[in-house]
């Protein structure tokens, strides 16, 4: 019963004050932040209702932002069922506890001296191929990558075959007299084009 809790009322009062402060012009908010910094004891206030802020966050380290870590985490899928990669899930779905755990696994494996390929291989060994955000390019999975282009090739072949059949059935049109179009002025060409279109169309 949050509404009846005195701490909630207190938080509400603090919150409204803070919100008003945040809406104030920049000079005011800068003044507020400076004031906080001048009073070290208050610089890190506690939230009245911490659970309302979602899963407790962990302090981000420089390693969390390493490009290699991000690259690996963009390639593996969070197993919580969200369909997102580990990096996106852990930095988006703040109710998920799976992606932070997988992130720690990535850091631990890199920390143990594994290369990117070895880390990815270790995840594959653990979870199977479904751990990757795209099917690894080997064996049957090539079918996934090649089929659209096979489709394109088949389509081009069909268009070519149909066009050849049509060309055979069509008597050759008289070639356009060279230079005929060049003799016309741009407005005449435009007019001709539009008349032809109106006629044909």
């Amino acid at each position, binding site marked *: *019963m*949050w509404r*009846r809790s005195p701490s909630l009322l207190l938080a509400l009062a*603090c*919150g409204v004050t*803070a*919100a008003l402060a*945040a*809406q104030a012009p*920049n000079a005011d*908010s800068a003044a*507020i932040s400076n004031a*906080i*910094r001048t009073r070290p004891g208050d*610089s890190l*206030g506690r939230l009245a209702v*911490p659970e*309302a*802020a*979602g899963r*407790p*966050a*962990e302090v*981000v380290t420089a390693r969390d*932002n390493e490009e290699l870590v991000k690259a690996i985490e*963009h390639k593996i*899928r969070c197993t919580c069922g969200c*369909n*997102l*990669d580990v990096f*996106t899930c852990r*930095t*988006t779905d*703040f*109710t998920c506890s799976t992606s932070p755990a997988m992130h720690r696994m990535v850091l631990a494996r890199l920390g143990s001296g594994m290369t990117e390929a070895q880390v990815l291989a270790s995840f594959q060994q653990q979870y199977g*191929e*479904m751990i*990757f955000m*795209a*099917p690894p390019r080997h064996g*049957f*999975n090539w079918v*996934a*990558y090649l*089929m*659209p282009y096979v489709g*394109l090739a088949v*389509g081009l072949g069909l*268009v070519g075959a149909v*066009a050849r059949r*049509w060309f055979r*059935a*069509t008597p050759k*049109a008289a070639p356009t007299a060279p230079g005929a*179009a060049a003799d016309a002025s741009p*407005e005449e060409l*435009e007019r001709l084009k539009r008349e032809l279109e*109106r*006629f044909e*169309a």
Partner: protein
Amino acid sequence: MTDIGNVALWITFFVALWASVVGFLAGRTHRPELARSAERSIFVMWGLLVIAAVALMRALLTHDFNVEYVAAYTSRNLPVFYTWSAFYAGQKGSLLLWALVVSTFGSVALLVNRGKYRELTPYVAGTIAIVVVFFVATMVFASNPFERLGFTPPDGRGLNPQLQNPGMVFHPPMLYLGYTSISVPFAFAVAALLSGRLDTGWLHAIRRWTLVSWLFLSCGIVLGMWWAYVELGWGGYWAWDPVENASFLPWLTMTAFLHSVMIQEKRGMLKKWNIGLVVLSFLLSIFGTFLTRSGVISSVHSFSQSNVGWFFLVFLVLAAVLGFGLLAWRWPMLQAEVKLESLVSREGSFLFNNLILIVIAFSVFWGTLFPVISEALRGTKVTVGPPFFNLVNVPLGLMLLLLTGIGPLIAWRRASPENLRRQFLWPVTALLVTAASLAAIRMSDWWSVVAYALGAFVVGTVVQEFVRGTLARHRLHGEMYPLAFVRLVGRNRRRYGGYVVHLGMVMLFAAFAGLAFKRETEVTLKPGQSVDVKSPYGWTYHITHQGVSQYEQLNRYVTAATVDVLRNGKYIGTMRSEKRQHLDSLGRPTFEPSTAVAIHSDAREDLYVVFAGAVQGTEEAVYRITINPLVWWVWYGGLVLALGGLITLWPGGQGPTAASRRRAEPAGYVAQVA
């Protein structure tokens, strides 16, 4: 009222059954009294579904929690604005909306075409009625929105916080309108096939419908992207989720149809192909719904699994057999009236454009289903996510962009070398200058360079068309340039509206190419601490954490983290990202806390700040900061796309072309064409 809604649904079921039987009988026997009965049944069906919809809406607004659907998707403290959207937030309500919209479109189609297409309309009524029978049967036998609980809870569960966003009020109805309006072209295609009236007349009847469907789908997709971007907080707008893909598939086939139908209207070619595309578009619209309902593929959009998926699968198979079976039956009657004279022609470029659109649709379909195929054939589960779709579709998308530029430059029938030289000179110059400029500034991503260069080519094409047309009108009629421009567009709305759509597509491609330069970082800040983030444009954002505040607002408890932002030392704003813990009317937490993103947006890039959480219950905050170049262009590209669609749709203009009317004449349609 709820019971009235339930009874209305049951009556609708029987009326729709009657309409479908009578409609097809009327088409077959040519008995006008049966045709009238089928037509009236469609209107009655619509009235009954309106009653059912009003009953459900009343139950939602009056908090009748004895109705299971109301208790599952609303609560007493849910704002009215979102109580409205709860109508389609769940499966049962969305099925009712679908049935209502199909019957509305069906009724409008019959009203608009009253007295015209007499041989087609009974079949149209019958086909629309079958679609409604299916949706109503799914409701009354498997997923009834009026199902009652054995008790009345004091409050409902409430609406998922992620759905409490203005984007979700407009995005799903737009998509539903897009999906459902495809039923009308499908019904006309089935009618044309059954009646044997296969000339271009039926195309006149559906021309605007296909555009309406395409426009709704386009708006629905872009609004969905906007919702994902501002609400989900992952820093992107398209994740190649199966359900996103499902909405994209009919859009692709409809886009192909809108191009290929011009060839049939102007040259009497591609008749089989066009009917095939209409049938395919309808099937793909049902396929999208099947995906969300069946649970066959895991998706963040999925409704809870239920046996409704089987209903959709059976309907999908039956509709495919009916559509393609009829097409095969009438195959000999669908011969082209003329032959293609040259591949270097407008027809040729449209053929390739259709090919690429269908291959993209196939690659999206294939990628979406590949996990199921892999598991069935190898017993191995795989994930097919954004890396796959980007790898496969980026080259195809660029080919499409190239063809978007080429198509308008080539003449119908056969292009001469002189015509090609004259038409291509300026667009190709734009392409080369852009490519050289981007190479000179050392743009690192080559796919993006190609995308921008091709974008410049398409813009060159469109600008050239507008400029030449306006100049020609100015010289021929002595009109002032602005007047010449307005009249040019006004009198050729389909053509120039199409060019505006192409401009919108270029803006979207430019935005997609900008994703290559996205930057993301995570940081923990105590109040007063700052972080510097580099933009791909070279400037620096100086972001200072001001603090975290908590307060109650509407139906939620808010934890707001605030930062001040300076760009290259100049203050650009205060941004606030929130965690929202939604509460029910008794003040109890419902759902997990959701995130509200802070976005500072301009035409160049978005600064996207997400409050990821507080460290150990203090004001020390974790932020995810993303710099997303050119996202603005997605939303405005979508607007331009919609504007182009509206110009094309706007009543008046030239109507069906002379050649198209001539082609309709032998089938007896001409007197009936508006």
